[in-house]
């Protein structure tokens, strides 16, 4: 199956179906160790002001070089379409390519997205040549609108960002997977490796996570667990599960039993 089951995004092919964030780690070295253990080829980053009182510090990209990893800048922290558009443009100017994860927060407590603003920002940025990956609620209609404006994928949440609650609405995700012609990437809410496996088993193309790895007691070990969970989930999806039945069905033959 090697090479035949690549994950295709924005015209590029990836072997890994796990996309990881780079926030909340103890230091850059741990960030890199966790990414390596996860097998991820695409990593998300945020765009922030340089600390001008201490500008000479190490840079994240020294440890996560764009020559090795596909960098996916996000618009985290933005609460309007305008802010997200501004952030995306700055990210592209900084020179890591055309990918952008659009995140427009509509509510500070739940970090649920402002869907109309997300669609508007995505519409504008697609026209400017960005490959737009929008973080969105697990709402099939919202996902369809985002696909209609030209997003390169849709990224419905499994549960609130950083909550670790796992997949709260697998049925909505199934509908989104069924209707989408672009990749469906579960973004946010995964807590453990079985959650990641479940996302892939449902038929999601990939899963994006940060806190579940960075916040684990042993982030590097959890990164490896997530890699295995994603691989297991994908293979399980491709293999095709048996139907659920109410009653038993013996695995051993009846013939040849002793009298």
């Amino acid at each position, binding site marked *: 199956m090697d090479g035949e089951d690549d994950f295709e995004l924005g015209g590029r092919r990836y072997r890994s179906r796990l996309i990881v*964030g*780079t*926030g*909340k*780690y103890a230091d850059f070295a741990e*960030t890199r160790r966790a990414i390596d253990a996860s097998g991820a080829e695409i990593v*998300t*980053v*945020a*765009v*922030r*002001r*340089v600390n*001008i009182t201490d*500008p*000479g510090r190490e*840079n*994240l*990209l020294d440890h996560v070089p*764009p020559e090795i990893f596909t*960098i996916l*800048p*996000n618009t*985290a922290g933005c609460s309007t379409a305008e802010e997200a558009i501004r952030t995306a*443009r*700055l*990210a592209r*100017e*900084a*020179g*890591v390519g055309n990918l952008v994860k659009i995140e427009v927060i509509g509510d500070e407590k739940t970090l649920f997205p402002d869907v109309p603003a997300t669609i508007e920002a995505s519409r504008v940025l697609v026209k400017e040549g960005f490959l737009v990956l929008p973080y969105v609620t697990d709402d099939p209609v919202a996902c369809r609108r985002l696909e209609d404006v030209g997003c390169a994928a849709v990224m419905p949440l499994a549960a609130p*960002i950083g909550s670790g609650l796992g997949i709260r609405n697998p049925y909505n995700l199934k509908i989104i997977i069924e209707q989408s012609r672009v990749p469906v990437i579960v973004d*946010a809410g995964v807590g453990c490796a079985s959650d990641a496996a479940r996302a892939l088993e449902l038929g999601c193309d990939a899963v*994006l*996570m*940060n*806190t579940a790895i960075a916040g684990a007691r042993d982030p590097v070990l959890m990164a490896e667990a997530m890699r295995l969970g994603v691989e297991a989930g994908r293979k399980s999806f491709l293999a095709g599960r048996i139907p659920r039945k109410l009653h038993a069905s013996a695995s051993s033959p009846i013939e040849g039993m002793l009298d």
Partner: protein
Amino acid sequence: MEIRLNGETRTVEDGLSVADLVGSLGLGGRRVAVELNREILAREDYPATRLAAGDVVEVVQFVGGG
């Protein structure tokens, strides 16, 4: 002259270029982006772009995030 740099007031020499400003921050050759008075400045324009008193400059980079 004074400019606003990343939200703080900074005194810089008159007519300082954006390239020199970025260099003085130790960010020459780094993947940063610069906004001058809310307009994104292309990297190739840094040397020829001279700052004026009161300019509002933002210099951003990538940090850890999800």
